């Protein structure tokens, strides 16, 4: 169970990127977050695992308030939050297996990790998960030799290696072609059921969102202005989420995001 209350994020003295945002995600559900660029989708996900520091408000994951954690407590909490990225963010020059095992870096002691001496159960788990998503035969290939879809699968397995309590996917299919992109969405949906995980997916493709998730959250100017079933997202709601964003305001919001990405 993820519970976000009164979440505010401002970059510098600019207008808030997230203002007074409330969101509750019960276990085992696939939630799509849609909204124009600069609506604050990315910032929202990054606040959850504290890649971005929230300005105020609280984020509770299974009873732990994430916003107050420091140092090793924060790292401990991050281990339980898997993240999947738009540009995969794999370590290009390392092997697929090393990338997958890097999901265990929060658990394994420094020297064992540095020497690539991972515990047997981690290696078993890695092979099992890679088998599950169909990349086990790539274990010793370099990550940058794989195709986009395969690389995103590595990204997904790396996140699952963390034994996460929640998965955050920041536009996981935006760099993929339509077919692989659907495969990845299907994979995320089935993994969510299999591992009884809540999955939050930032996504631009509304069709995919409707098809593969059970709930859609529409964001605009850092607020949630739609929250409902995919079938409830009619043209009217779509207009509210996407249409008529004044250029000046949009620029302000996007500037904020860009500044955040640089931090």
């Amino acid at each position, binding site marked *: 169970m993820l519970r976000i209350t009164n979440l505010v994020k401002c970059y510098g003295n600019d207008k808030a990127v997230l203002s007074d945002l409330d969101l509750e995600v019960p276990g085992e559900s696939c939630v799509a977050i849609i909204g124009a660029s600069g609506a604050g989708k990315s910032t929202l996900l990054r606040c959850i*695992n504290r*890649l971005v520091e929230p300005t105020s408000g609280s984020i509770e994951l299974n009873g732990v308030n994430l916003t107050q954690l420091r140092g090793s407590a924060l*790292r*401990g*909490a*991050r*281990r*339980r*939050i*898997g*993240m999947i*990225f738009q*540009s995969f*963010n*794999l*370590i*290009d*020059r*390392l092997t697929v297996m*090393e990338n997958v095992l*890097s*999901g265990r*870096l*929060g*658990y394994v002691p*420094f020297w064992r*990790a*540095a020497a690539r001496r991972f515990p047997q159960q981690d290696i078993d788990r890695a092979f099992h998960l890679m088998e599950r998503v169909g990349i086990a035969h790539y274990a010793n290939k370099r990550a940058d030799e794989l195709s986009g879809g395969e690389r995103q699968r590595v*990204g997904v397995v*790396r*996140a699952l290696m*963390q034994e996460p309590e929640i998965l955050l996917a920041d536009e996981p299919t935006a760099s993929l072609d339509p077919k692989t992109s659907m495969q990845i969405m299907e994979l995320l949906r089935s993994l969510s059921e299999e591992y009884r995980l809540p999955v939050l997916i930032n996504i631009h493709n509304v069709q995919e969102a409707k098809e593969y998730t059970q709930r859609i959250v529409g964001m605009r100017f850092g607020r949630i202005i739609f929250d409902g079933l995919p079938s409830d997202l009619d043209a009217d709601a779509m207009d509210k989420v996407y249409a008529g964003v004044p250029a000046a305001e949009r620029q302000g919001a996007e500037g904020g995001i860009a500044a955040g990405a640089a931090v």
Partner: protein
Amino acid sequence: MSNQNAASAPLPRRTWRKPPFIANPAIRWGIIILSIVYIVWALATLPFDWVRIQEGLPRAARIFSSAFPPDLKRPGLVLDGLMETLRIAILATILGVGASIPIAFMAASNLAPRPIYLLGRGIIIVARSFHPVIVAIVFVKAVGFGPLAGILTLAIYSIGFVAKMLAERIEEIDWGQVEALRAAGAGYFITLIYAVLPQIMPRQIGLTIYQFDSNLRASAVVGIVGAGGIGATLMNAFRRYDYDFALAITLIIIAAILVSEAISGRIRRKIW
């Protein structure tokens, strides 16, 4: 668009001059005149002893003529010197590059906290600010004549270059990979090893090979001030007025450097 321009201009302009490099004519001419005045003044005030130069020219000619033909009289001595130079260069490269890696991490502004960053940059600036010959003179005074002074000198010389270039490479890394591991709850140092080291590895290897090359060249020079190696052998030949032997040694040094540059150039092209 071009038609419109042609129509609005009453007369087509047919002359064009490159705009001057310095737009303000007063500043432009001021700089030109000042430079000329300074050069004339500098030449006029430096103590050139033309008589001495005239006397010296035939002496220089005598030295050069006595150096021909070059004579490799004591090949054993040259070989020993060359091997010592090679050992100095290898050890200095290992030591210098080994020290450069942590210093480069310290001096990368995207990874290091501000005070550590300043310390790292400070070390690099100090290591770069003196020519190896000056450093060698200090080390020869400190640890005595011989290869140890050479190794320490070239290690510092290596830090100045390798750490600087490596720090710049670290500042260019793809931050997404670091972010991914931070998001997985990985600690700071293991993140450096997993997300940063693989990204800078090709540059690291290329720099190491280049620096070895550079150290080989420099070790011949610092040998002249007493830091061991083939440079010391060369200096001894000069002191004994053994000019033909000195020329032979010089040619050997040039040959050794050419060979090492050819090999390292080939390896670096393969990696980069």
